[in-house]
């Protein structure tokens, strides 16, 4: 992926500019750069990034210990949801599941007492989203590999 950094930065959709349809779907790629499923898997397993396994069980990630069950198993999600639906769920799950406890991974405003990561201190004025646009696309690419059987 030898994209010039400038070119890719220009192609990135900012959190405030993401376009959702009425069902919470996001059709357009956030970066225009295809996601890397391996990188996405790492984001999902990493505590300080997606930490998706805190709430979800994924059989294909059996090597990652201590998977939670606060949310549904992600086995077979690629059969249940389209790419645009999954992107929408990752960006802001509330648009698909109203009042979901699943965090919005690509959102930067509307929070009550946002912190600076896990420090307990106040957030900086330019609080970044939890995941970058490319990390969202990477996680999405991995989710799209999760077919039943």
């Amino acid at each position: 992926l030898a994209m010039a950094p400038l070119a890719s930065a220009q192609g990135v959709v900012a959190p405030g500019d993401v376009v959702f349809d009425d069902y919470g779907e996001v059709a357009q790629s956030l970066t225009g750069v295809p996601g890397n499923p391996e990188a996405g898997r790492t984001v999902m397993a990493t505590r300080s990034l997606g930490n998706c396994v805190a709430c979800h069980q994924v059989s294909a990630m059996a090597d990652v210990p201590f998977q939670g069950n606060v949310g549904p198993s992600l086995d077979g999600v690629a059969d249940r949801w389209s790419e645009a639906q999954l992107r929408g769920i990752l960006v802001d799950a509330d648009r698909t599941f109203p009042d979901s406890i699943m965090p919005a991974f690509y959102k930067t405003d509307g929070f009550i007492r946002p912190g600076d990561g896990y420090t307990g201190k106040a957030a900086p004025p330019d609080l970044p989203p939890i995941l970058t646009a490319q990390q969202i696309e990477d996680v999405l690419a991995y989710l799209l590999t999760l077919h039943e059987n």
Partner: protein
Amino acid sequence: ALLMAGSGSADPDHDDLIVNGEIDMIERAPAPPYVEAFDEIISGWSFRSDETQALQMDDFDNPGMLGVERARVMFDTPMGSGGQACSSCHETPEALRGVRATYPKWDEERQTVQTVEMQVNECLTERMGAEPLGYDSPEMVDMAALIASVSRGMVVNVAIDGPARPVWEQGRELYYTRFGQLELACANCHEDNAGRMIRADHLSQGQINGFPTYRLNNAALISVHNRFRGCIRDTRAETFPVGSPELVALELYVASRGNGLTVEGPAVRN
């Protein structure tokens, strides 16, 4: 219909907690009417592993009792300009039996809700001419553990009516506020998902009848406000300081959600 690969069972167990073979705890009680999410309130002890549970069943195995012993020494030690010890006025720690079960509590003189820690500092500064202890200092947590330990087995009965009511309501409001970048309220984890696993952690109802708790992960006694701060921090939020009006209000509200359980502090947790 979720089958977990390798993780333990998710429901709290029905083991019976009897400490030192004599203090029979109430681990399950009917939920107070203002706790609408549950029929039954359950002590955090019931959510822990058998190994962790066992450590709380005998004072010789409970590392939190070392803090209690340290505080017993402090209780008899003269402090401050008057040369008095706690025991000058309260004779023995056992004279304070019952305190933990009813705190936080409205203080008529101060016109405010006081926690046990605030009450201890009141005696230190206003009655003994001593410096206050840090709200979350090891000495204060030890003293809170001592004051809890002499009430073990008593039924939690925190008052939420009268002048304490607005503070209780503020605490309830905080309990249901979705803080931080993860937008999670106490209720999202401790009501909606009690009994489930969040990564390696078995979510309890977040009761505080066992506080201060000895946490094996920290190898230390942990105060109520310290625990609250940790949970708020984990939502990627800006926390509140220990002893702040917000955490006092939250403590009153959360304590009242445990009305009917028994005082267990110092409990043992992972």
